[in-house]
Every structure is written in C-alpha cells, then in structure tokens.
C-alpha cells in the first residue's frame, strides 16, 4: 500500500544544512496499523510530511498504491498534533468536516451522510453546530479525526495526535483509533514518541534512530487484536514488547551522541 524507499531529507538553510532523515525504507501493507516510534527530534514529523506529499524529499521515493507521491495524494488524510491549529476556527464542526468533501464536488446528500457518519463514529453527533474552540482539546482532536474519516482515505497518517491531551482522554482516543481502524480497514501510519502507545496500538512498531534518521528495528506486535486499556497493558507479553522497544529507543538516543557531530557539516556524507 505504502512504500517508502531510501527516503532522505536535507534541509538547506542560511549557511547550514541539516540532514533530518538519512535513509528510510519501509512498507505499510494495506489495512495495517503501523506505529513509528523514536527519540524526540528524530525527524518523525519530517518523514510524515514527506509521506503526506507536503515536503519534497531530497532523495528516495514514496509510493502510494504503486504510484509515486509528488504532492498531497487524494486518498490520504493527515491528523496533526496541534488540533487547535488544524481546525478552521471560523467554521463550525460540521463545516470543518465537510469542507474537504465540498472541494471534491461531492453531491450534498452524500456529503451530509458522510459528515453525520464520521461525527457519530467519534461520538460527537451533538457537536456539529459548535465552533471548535468551544470544545475541549480531546473533542477537538476527535473532530480532526472525524474530518479525516469523512474523507474516506485509504491511508491515514497521524502525527503524535494525542501528545497534547490529558492522559485519560488519551486512553479514550487510543481506543477510538484502534476501534475505527478495525471497523473500517483503513491503513494507518501512526507516529508517536510514546513507547506504550506504540505497542498498545500497533500491529507493527518501527523504531527509528536519532536524527539523521534510519529505521533501527521493526517489531511485530503479537498481542491479540482485541485490546483494552485495562488488560492489555498489564499482560506479560505487553511488558516484554514494551521493554524491547524501550531498549531500542534508549540505544538510539545513545547512538545519537556520535553522529550528532556531522549533522551540520558543510559537505554531505556520501550515501
């Protein structure tokens, strides 16, 4: 479904160049839920923006359903961390969800149906007439998720979507995402810095190295697909997987100390 091959991204700024992503290769199968986890500042957001077609990679390519991504592809929706800045504050919740559909020139009846269905899925049927800023942070993020769902994407990208909400809301939203993924069969690429979250949600976890980023390890999460906050998180297998991912992330952080020196070198390292 989603193929990332030899992705490399170097930011060229005033007199300095920062290699954010060095060489990333991975695939996400159709209907899979893959979590990307890595130390803070490891280029996760850069990677996600490249995948979303919002940033042009320096080298390598990204294929969505076999076709190369050169701009934001149809059939892909992104949910950002900053829910407060990704919803349009001048539109009511319903209009926010509907706008991308309007842009596709979808007939009105169908649009209404999708908007109502998406808001129902995230438990916000009653909030359609409210403005986003009248809602709590968790509810705003639900609106952003509803907007992505109504868009009927093949691939849903989520960039640390729950980093800015409180712990209880976060647990609810994790279950929501997992539930929606199972119900709708969407392919999900979920970026997070939270190891527990990655293990709890993912079918597969990719551990990234510190910047400049490469894939450090891939772990298959062989937990039962029926998961809940109460039991899954205390299961012995969860603890094992969590420890493995944790060790990898720690190693990635330590590893960062050495190559950090060549991050700002004027000449690019040969790859």
């Amino acid at each position: 479904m989603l193929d990332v091959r030899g992705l490399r991204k170097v930011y060229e700024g005033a007199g300095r160049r920062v290699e954010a992503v060095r060489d990333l290769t991975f695939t996400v199968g159709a209907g899979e839920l893959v979590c990307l986890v890595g130390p803070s500042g490891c280029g996760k957001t850069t990677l996600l923006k490249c995948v979303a077609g919002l940033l042009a990679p320096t080298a390598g390519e990204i294929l969505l359903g076999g076709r190369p991504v050169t701009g934001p592809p149809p059939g892909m929706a992104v949910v950002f961390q900053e829910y407060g800045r990704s919803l349009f504050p001048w539109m009511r919740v319903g209009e926010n969800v509907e706008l991308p559909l309007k842009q596709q020139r979808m007939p009105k009846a169908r649009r209404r149906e999708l908007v109502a269905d998406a808001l129902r899925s995230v438990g916000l049927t009653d909030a359609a007439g409210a403005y986003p800023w009248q809602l709590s942070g968790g509810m705003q993020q639900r609106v952003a998720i509803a907007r992505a769902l109504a868009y009927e994407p093949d691939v849903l990208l989520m960039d640390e979507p729950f980093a800015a909400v409180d712990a209880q809301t976060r647990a609810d939203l994790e279950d929501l995402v997992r539930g929606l993924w199972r119900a709708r069969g969407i392919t999900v690429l979920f970026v997070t810095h939270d190891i527990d979250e990655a293990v709890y949600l993912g079918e597969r976890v990719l551990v990234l190295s510190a910047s400049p980023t490469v894939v450090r390890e891939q772990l298959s999460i062989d937990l039962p697909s029926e998961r809940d906050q109460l039991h899954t998180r205390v299961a012995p297998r969860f603890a094992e997987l969590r420890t493995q991912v944790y060790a990898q992330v720690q190693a990635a952080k330590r590893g960062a100390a050495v190559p950090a020196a060549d991050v700002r070198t004027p000449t690019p390292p040969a790859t």
Partner: protein
Amino acid sequence: MKRPALRLVLALALPVLLVTVWWFASAGSTDVYRPPLRTILTTFPDVWTGERLRADVLPSLLRLLAGYAAAAVLGVALGTVIGSYRRVRAVCEPVLEFLRAVPPPVLVPVIMLFAGIGDTMKVAVIASGCVWPVLLNTVEGVRAVDPVLSETARGYGITGAARLRHVVLRSASPQIFTGLRQALSIGIILMVISEMFAASNGLGFTIVQFQRQFAIPGMWTGILLLGLLGFLLSVVFQLVERRVLGWYHGLRASSRRSP
C-alpha cells in the same frame, strides 16, 4: 438584567455631561462665532430639512461609499497578492512605505488635475486615502496564516480559489477589519476635505458655504451632523464586524479563559 442598563448609563454619562457643560457655558454668549448651543439646536431642523439631506448629505454619503468600496476591494485584492508572494513583497514594500507616508489630503490638488472637479475626483481622493490601511493590514493578515492550517488545507486538496476563500481571507479577516475600521475614519475626513476644495454640493461644501455667509449657527449644525454621521457609520461598522468576526471574538475569549 441590570448590566445592559448600567452599560447604557456609563456610555451616555460623558456625552450628557459634555453637552450640559457646552449648554451652560455658551448660554449667555453674544460672540457671533460662538453662538449658544440653544441657538445651534433650534437652527438644526431649519437647516437640515429633507430637501437638504437629499441634496447635500446623500451625495456626500454616496461618494464616501463608492470611494470606500473601491479602496476595500483594491486593498484586499492587492494585499492578498503582495502578502502571498515573498518576491512581490520585496519589490513592493519600499514603494508602499513611501506612498502611505504621503498625507492623502495633499493628493486632492493632484487628483483634480487629471480627474477634474466632479464626483470622480472626490471618489478617487477618498479611495486613494482609504486604500493604504486596508492594503497594509491585509498583507500582514495574509502573511500570518497559520502554517499548520495551511498544510491541513493542502493535504485535503483545498487549493486555489477555495483556499483563498475558505482559508486565506477568513484567516486574515481580523486584520482586514482593522484596516477597514481605520479606513472608515480616513474616508470621512477625505470626503469633507475633497468637498471643501471644489464642489457644488455635499456636507463639506455646505459647511464652508455657511462659514463664508457668516451663517455661523448653520456652520455649527453641519459640524454636529458630521459627528453624528461618523458615529452612526461606526455603529454600523461594529454591527457588521460582530457578525463577520463572531468566531474571532469567541476564539479570543475562550483562549483567555484557558491559557
């Protein structure tokens, strides 16, 4: 229910006080140039008859409206282009700084040279003064569109005209309204000034006319009328703004409550 009443009392207190002071201070005045307020007020209905409102006030208002509308459209359109492209901004900025530093009344004689002394000249004068605050505020507003919002729109394929309409202009609307509010007061000033230079009707013309004929109470009524007109226009403006920017005031109020 007591609070609106209290607000009304607070809003009216100072105007009432000022008028009272004016009334008593001028009560026994025999100075021709400073007639008693009582005289001015009794002259008011005699001067501003329906006929005169139609012949002088209406043309003034229409010129103001035409000039203001032209400035608003031009300012928002140019401001959007300049704000959207860094290159265009780099080219235009020095010129804009120069042009907006020129006091608009100075342009009246210049514009008279090629636009004559008719309505075109007055509309052009009003537009040329009003356009700057709208233009400069639009540039700032368009530049300040949130990058996350912008990327979200792009990700959902909202580009081109839809992006302009639903994202850029809406996001810039608070700044655009700031510009429009500044432009409104400039517009009223230029309306009067352009009519004082060369006109056969209009509020500015009438006030100057009264002054030349030593119809001093009449002149004062004209000034009062101008003040009232400016006040009314700003009330209308506020009503429109509250409607269009309701979301913005709500957003600000909610972010003040939860920082």
